[in-house]
């Protein structure tokens, strides 16, 4: 009997695992990378928060996140919170709402910059990482002068140009079968080339983005660490409960012939 239970439980777990893996496997283009951020890395989260407040929060809101919660979770002391985190004119209990007026934003960018509270959950960390690392100079883009590989035609200007610089994209022409089977000449991305230099090396910039992505992942699911910490105890308890109830069941079932 125990082997039967174990094998069925294992099969069930395997089924769940297979489902998770198959659901996870998105198609990755060659240039795309994994964010590789560690949600448990507190200094990285703190740096990410700093990056966000310095470069992103002017336009993007985190309208479900309070300064207070942020400081608590990221272990930022109250005095530092009030000095560096909370902008003038706001209270520490306020939500991180950008002060950009919606109408002007629409006039400037064509649409208001999206709220980023849940971007890590709707798009995923890898997506944000690739978005923030794949801006390139594109003269065809009249509005911003840049384009993006992850989100072609994005309305967002390259806000991080001062740190990353502006890279150029190298393309090659390739013939690919079209819908009717005839080959069509297609422009295929090959690689990035350094263009205008920024204040960071590519390696430093990756780290900078990684921290920011890490922070956004935290914002998308702020209880993740707490949840996993409690989860271990819950699972251990349930395993113990299962073991004891199995022994009890076995004791009673001895009489069944």
């Amino acid at each position, binding site marked *: *009997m125990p082997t*039967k*239970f174990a094998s*069925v*439980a294992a099969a*069930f*777990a395997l089924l*769940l695992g297979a*489902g*998770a*893996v*198959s*659901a*996870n496997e998105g198609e990755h283009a060659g240039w795309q990378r994994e964010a590789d951020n560690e949600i448990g890395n507190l200094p990285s989260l703190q740096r990410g928060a700093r990056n966000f407040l310095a470069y992103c929060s002017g336009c993007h809101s985190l309208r*479900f*996140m309070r300064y207070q*919660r942020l400081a608590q979770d990221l272990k930022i002391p109250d005095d530092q919170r009030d000095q560096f985190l909370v902008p003038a004119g706001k209270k520490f209990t306020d939500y991180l709402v950008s002060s950009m007026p919606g109408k002007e934003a629409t006039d400037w960018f064509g649409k208001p910059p999206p709220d980023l*509270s*849940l971007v890590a*959950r*709707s*798009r*995923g960390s890898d997506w944000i990482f690739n978005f923030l690392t794949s801006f390139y100079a594109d003269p065809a883009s009249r509005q911003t002068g840049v384009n993006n590989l992850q989100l072609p035609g994005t309305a967002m200007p390259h806000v991080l140009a001062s740190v990353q610089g502006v890279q150029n994209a190298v393309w090659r022409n390739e013939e690919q079968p079209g819908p009717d089977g005839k080959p069509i000449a297609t422009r295929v991305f090959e690689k990035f080339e350094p263009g205008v230099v920024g204040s960071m090396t590519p390696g430093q910039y990756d780290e900078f983005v990684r921290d920011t992505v890490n922070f956004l992942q935290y914002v*998308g699911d*702020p*209880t993740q660490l*707490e*949840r*996993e910490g*409690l*989860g*271990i105890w*819950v*699972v251990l308890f*349930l*395993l113990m*409960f*299962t073991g004891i*109830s*199995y022994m*009890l*069941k076995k004791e*009673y*079932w001895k009489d*069944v*012939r």
Partner: protein
Amino acid sequence: MSAVIEGKGGFRAWLNKRLPVDQFVADQLTGYYAPKNFNIWYFFGSLALLMFVMQIVTGIFVTMHFKPGDLTAWDSVQRMVREVPYMWLIQPMHAVGASFFFIVVYLHMARAFLYGSYKSPREVLWVIGMLIYFALMAEAFMGYVLPFGNMSYWGAQVIINIFGTIPGIGPDLVEWIRGDYGIGDATLTRFFSLHVIALPFVIALLVALHLVALRQVGSNNPDGIEIKEKLGPDGKPLDGIPFHPYYTLKDIVGVGIFLTLFAIVVFFVPTFGGLFMEGPNFEPANPVSTPEHIAPVWYFTPYYAILRAIPNQRIGALLMALAVMAFLFLPWLDRARNKSMRYRGLASKLLLGMFFVSFLVLMWLGMKPADPLYVILARICTALYFAFFILLPFVSKADGNGPVPERVTYHAD
């Protein structure tokens, strides 16, 4: 079956005179004899009941903080998860719970297929079970729309529009369901009412009837033979054991294993790679931004794949409805003398295997974009799905009549 309770004084006797507690336990638990050869497949009934209770309990807390309405629904879910103590646990339990509910319900149904549990005298038991399944689908669909994420919106759009294919009344019916020209405030408030009051009541009533019918006919078992036909000198079934303590204790072990798996998902992978909670649903409903692939949650995808497989929308919707309804007729389509697959021929086993595979492949296809190759595969699986119901009367008649054992097969360990 009933034992007379006597000789006890005090509060218990006082209470029993007024409310037959001991009598109920004696009739329904200690005096209810179930076959002793239940296997793993027999856990899922009690687990389905557990999931129903869990959804009600977690739902009560979610309802406390949820604000139905097109402007408030999405924000209220985000706020409760982030700001109300422990709602970060309870709300995902409710959302993930829906998926686990369907996992156990599908396994519970598969058990009936394997051992012919729907066959006489359990036809009514099966039909009530199917009504629970239908009510559960409506309940889950409305629950999925309520948080009003972008997939809620577009999923609802697709599913409600299916009713628009009904000739004549279709367009008016769609408007009547939505309560508006589009999915909006009116849709959410009525779905909320149905989701938290009407359907839970209906399901609770059906579950009670399901249990009453079960007590009336007794459980089937993996051998598909009636234990009531072999009674001992005491009038009890020779192959039966009292439900309590034997199956209550065994079911608790099942509960332990099940809750462990449930906890692993809720605490560590609540979105389950986008299967239990989909990425687009972390964006608020947006009528002008369609998600890349609109797909319902996994437990609806087999039917969704059938819908998409047919070029003519009206026929597709009809086939989809037929695919769901076909289950109701199973007791009368299966004409074998034997219930259990154990004592049927290879043709029956292959036919059932084909049905299971086509159901699972359709489930997978329903999550995928409608690429030409996938559509062809979906058509093949749709054909196989219906072939099962069409061939069943003939195959079951031909090879479901072999010898069956006198007594159930049970090996004590």
